[in-house]
């Protein structure tokens, strides 16, 4: 998905440049780093950012700093830590990054406590901890030794993430309207890395000061995870090009497209046929009978009308739907198991077959 989205955005190198530039701006505005830094939390994007910003801040103090990353559960972790802490030939500073200290082996634990007791002059320590009670003892010792803690906990979906995005925009010295932030979040979904990337992209590409919902729409329409219902609506509207485009987008965005799409198309078809079967009833009665909101009935009647000369194809769609449902669930006959491509092919066939105009 990331690759797809990047390929779609114009001027990708620009994005990379901006991200790099931002990092260095932020680093220079940071307070002097502490000898020990704790990145606590399980949001990878925030952890990475905490680590890279701290490294950058340290690098600003001493340009010759070298970086060593050691997983806390590795067998030779303790030895590597001791190596990194011992003074080196040229007196260069070392940033020691120990990841996942919740799973620290006893040796690593001892080595880190050794650093706490006797911090080496030239060494800086950054540890990451995903949260939870494992390794809490060590974490408390690091805190007591004056470790600066950076909160990297995963953001809750919804409000918390939206607030984070707003702050993120502000850190670029830009502003975005509230509905634009929400629209961006809706369009991309709860993937912090993509969201942050999208914001820096917007900040660099949008010329005017305030980023509005129009900017979001012009950049992200269609990229949003397409709901099955969007595809279903296009199909029963007989807008085959739109249907196909939405389906392809949905497939690119997620592996789990088949079942929800078939279900959405089936309930759409049920509603269209249901509305078509009650041509003289009032909208309200139809809505009650087939279980849709009343405002939808008009649309359903229009969809029915689009198929009125082509009833047999609509009936064939019902058969094709069941076939596609079997296909996306792995094939009907015992022992059959369809590959992902075959499942998607079944969906594409379904969409094309049902929405295309009658040939000739």
């Amino acid at each position, binding site marked *: 998905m990331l690759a797809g989205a990047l390929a779609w955005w114009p001027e990708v190198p620009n994005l990379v440049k901006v991200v790099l530039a931002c990092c260095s701006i932020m680093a220079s505005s940071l307070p002097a780093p502490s000898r020990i830094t704790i990145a606590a939390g399980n949001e990878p994007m925030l952890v990475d950012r905490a680590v890279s910003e701290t490294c950058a801040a340290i690098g600003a103090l001493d340009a010759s700093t070298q970086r060593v990353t050691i997983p806390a559960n590795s067998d030779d972790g303790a030895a590597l830590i001791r190596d990194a802490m011992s003074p080196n030939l040229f007196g260069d500073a070392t940033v020691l990054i120990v990841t996942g200290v919740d799973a620290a082996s006893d040796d690593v634990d001892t080595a880190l406590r050794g650093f706490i007791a006797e911090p080496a002059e030239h060494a800086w320590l950054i540890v990451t901890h995903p949260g939870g009670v494992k390794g809490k003892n060590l974490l408390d010792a690091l805190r007591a030794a004056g470790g600066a803690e950076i909160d990297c906990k995963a953001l809750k979906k919804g409000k918390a993430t939206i607030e984070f995005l707003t702050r993120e925009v502000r850190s670029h010295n830009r502003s975005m309207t509230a509905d634009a932030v929400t629209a961006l979040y809706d369009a991309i979904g709860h993937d912090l890395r993509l969201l942050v990337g999208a914001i820096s992209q917007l900040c660099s590409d949008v010329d005017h000061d305030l980023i509005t919902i129009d900017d979001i729409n012009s950049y992200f329409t269609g990229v949003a995870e397409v709901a099955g219902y969007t595809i279903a609506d296009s199909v029963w509207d007989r807008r085959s090009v739109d249907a196909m485009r939405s389906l392809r987008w949905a497939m690119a965005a997620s592996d789990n497209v088949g079942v929800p799409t078939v279900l959405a198309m089936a309930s759409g078809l049920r509603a269209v046929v249901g509305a078509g*079967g009650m041509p003289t009833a009032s909208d309200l009665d139809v809505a009650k009978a087939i279980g849709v909101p009343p405002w939808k009935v008009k649309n359903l009647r229009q969809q029915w009308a689009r198929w009125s000369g082509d009833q047999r194809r609509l*009936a064939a*769609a019902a058969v094709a*739907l*069941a076939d596609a449902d079997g296909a996306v669930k792995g094939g009907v006959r*015992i022992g059959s198991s369809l590959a992902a491509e075959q499942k998607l092919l079944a969906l594409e066939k379904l969409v094309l077959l049902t929405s295309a105009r009658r040939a000739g």
Partner: protein
Amino acid sequence: MSIWDALVGQDEVVAQLERAVASAELLTRGEPGPAMTHAWLFTGPPGSGRSTAATCFGAALVCLEGGCGVCQACRNAPLGGHLDVDVIRPDGLSYSVDEARDLVKQAAMSPASSHWHVVIVEDADRLTDQAVNVLLKSIEEPPPHTIWLLCAPSVEDVPPTIVSRTRHVALRTPSTAEVAKALTDRYAVDGAIAAFAARASQGHIGRARALATDEHARLRRAEVLRVPLELRDLNSCFVCAANILDAASADADAITAPLNQAEIEDLDASYGVGGSAAIKGQLKRSRDAALKDLTKRQKTRSTRTVRDQVDRVLLDLLGLYRDVLVIQLDAVVPLINEEMRPQIQQLAANSTANDTGRRLGAIDYARAQIQSGVTPLIGLESLMVEIKDPWIRSASA
């Protein structure tokens, strides 16, 4: 009175199993008993009584009289109340590898009050491949007192690795006369109704009993068989599909609701819910977790039951079109739905044998679809469309 009375029209199977029980008796005294072995596979069409046969066999093995039918062991074993007879009934859609691992341990226990520890696996066709692999070793060489009895619709439904490790007991579909006789003997059903139920159920004994004793079941069946006459347009196809599913769900509910209720009451009783003091703290959390787990299992069971009921409806439809074909081909065999002869003749007159063949194929395919996981409503809608217009697939090509 004998334990084998529960089986209808399976004389050969009964003889085979009686020989096995006699051999088992010899084995316990250290003499050779060639008719007995440690792993059996019971196959037979749905409703022929394969799990009944397995349970009877299990009861006869743990009965000291070799299946007298009256002692404590004979009465408790079929109800799942005998210590040495474990009945495993995969409630969900499949039987998982974890459950299979537990089962192997359970099967290794020594018998408590008899010579044999019998493990009955109903619906062995629902074992996943991994579960089968876990069981293989134990089925091939179980501990000396353990007997495996597996049940499946046909040999093709279980992996060949199981088939080659078991002795095969094939039940046949009991004849209409045998089923009718069993109904009148056991449930004192009126002769005419018994004959109808035996015909309509096509040898499925449980179904025959339901049709013979439950007025609602008869009514619902009659409604289903009117479906082909009601398919006028696309809308009516969808309405009929929804009606069939509703009826099947109602039938499934009637089966699962009392079970669910009883299981929840059992659970609550074991945690002391409803006693004088309200439970709280750790106990309450533990009970809530157990309830959540139970509800999840009940949900998969109800999904499965709905599917089974839909399948039964489709079998009824299959029977109807079989009758249509019988008339169209002037075959001299009795109709399954004799009471609907006029309607069947009308359906036969309005279509060709070729159409009927397509319809039969469509019903069969819909059964396969729904069994393999296609949403029942979608499968039924597709089927109704195909029944109305058996050549619809060529329209979409």
